[in-house]
């Protein structure tokens, strides 16, 4: 009987929202790492050819900021005892890099900016979701620190 009473709070849990299915720490680390790798590779490519000072400045900022976020996530992962495998592009990111390689001149710049707008919306979604409900506190804090950086990039892109 006592056991049944003890269960009442557990039964009431059935009335609360189903638990969030936030990304596992390893999945977050993998997703963020791939996104940073794509940012660096695409930005380095466009810096090789772009004659547009605004595009070059933006690409340079992307390389710097996404190198830093990779390092910050790596540090937080170590504190969270989460292994960090070498980052790898997703099939879509591989395709996006191939598109940039197949373009030159202003067309490459234009494709780069279009890709950046889409990729940053997705990056923001990933970072915000983990910053809100992530289960590994050091990684959650790292995501929270990355959110305003991505938001700043989005504001810069809206001017391009």
């Amino acid at each position: 009987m006592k056991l049944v009473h003890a269960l009442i709070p557990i039964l009431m849990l059935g009335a609360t929202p189903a638990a969030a299915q936030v990304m596992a720490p390893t999945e977050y680390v993998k997703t963020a790492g791939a996104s940073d790798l794509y940012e660096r590779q695409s930005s380095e490519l466009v810096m090789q050819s772009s004659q547009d000072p605004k595009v070059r400045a933006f690409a340079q900022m992307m390389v710097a900021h996404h190198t830093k976020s990779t390092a910050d996530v790596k540090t937080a992962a170590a504190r969270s005892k989460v292994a960090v495998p070498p980052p790898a592009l997703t099939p879509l990111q591989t395709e996006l890099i191939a598109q940039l390689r197949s373009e030159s001149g202003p067309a490459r710049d234009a494709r780069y900016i279009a890709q950046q707008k889409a990729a940053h919306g997705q990056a923001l979604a990933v970072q915000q979701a983990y910053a809100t409900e992530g289960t590994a506190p050091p990684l959650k804090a790292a995501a929270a620190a990355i959110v305003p950086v991505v938001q700043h990039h989005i504001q810069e892109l809206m001017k391009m």
Partner: protein
Amino acid sequence: MKASIAVALLAMSALAGPAIAQPSTSPNAPPPATPRASSAKPAPAAADMQAVLDAHAALGPKPIETLTPVKARIQPSAADAAIAVKRQKGMSTAPDPAVTTKDLPYGADPMQYARIYRPASAPSDAILPVIVYYHGGGWVIADVNTYDATPRSLSRQLNALVVSVEYRHAPEAKFPAQHDDAAAAYAWVLKSAVGWGGDATRVALAGESAGGNLAIATAIQARDRGLTKPVHILSVYPIANSATNLPSRMDSATAKPLNTAMLKWFGHYYARTPADLQDPRINLVTADLKGLPPVTIVNAQIDPLRSDGETLAAALRSAGVPVEQRTFEGMTHEFFGMAAVVRGAFDAQAWAVSRLQPALAK
């Protein structure tokens, strides 16, 4: 003994599940239970449409209906696949430079902004007609970037400004946030178009998928609020009918890139309660449609939303609204923007343009 009662009670509570749960606004909220797999086999796609579906599969998308919103938002889209096909064919993947864009806010939320497409060849002092366009994605996924192809193409072909409206997404902002934003953006265009070279007396509404719904719903709101009436509505494979037994829900249950399980998944995140699905703003076939401007409805044969467009056309006709609807054979959901690589999309755009052109003329 006591322990076994406890186990039984626990099992019961698990079965009862989150029936009285408050809907979660988290992008990490779990997906609904996946419906039983359908054995229906969708109709065969045209060869050029199939090439896009194959390119999509090669990008490794996970089934949206099994994911949380945040994971769904990072999956490759059908539009990504169409661009990949362009690259494979040696075509440029860069956005058409004949059209320029500018982003402007229409509200305080970061999602409340519009991307204005303008033909690069238009003189800087030209006053152009305006098309307000709403993107798709079931109000949960995708954004103005995913749906770049259609507004860019309409701007060029119609020598018009196209205002592609971003709006708050579910589940962070649930129904009717998207309808409210769509209507706010329309009112903002009427008020401010003159400031960026738009003619506020020649405004059409357009949209794809969830955005095809917003185009019709916004015209209804404009009528009810006494705003300037749009001159035409282009509604491409809209969400318009909440019945679950529509023919297309069955015959295209396992179609790609949209299947019937995804429609349930979208509703799970955008609706506050099941009653929202019966709201006339979503279940448009039950809305008061009287007095709307002429409507053009584009559908794809291989699409669980095909019957929505067909039944919406019938409802509009009953309400005395001039309407033309066409279903494009061998095409799937999301085909409309793919004119560069899919013949049916080229034809559908040409038809839509021929309907919009006279409506937007002075």
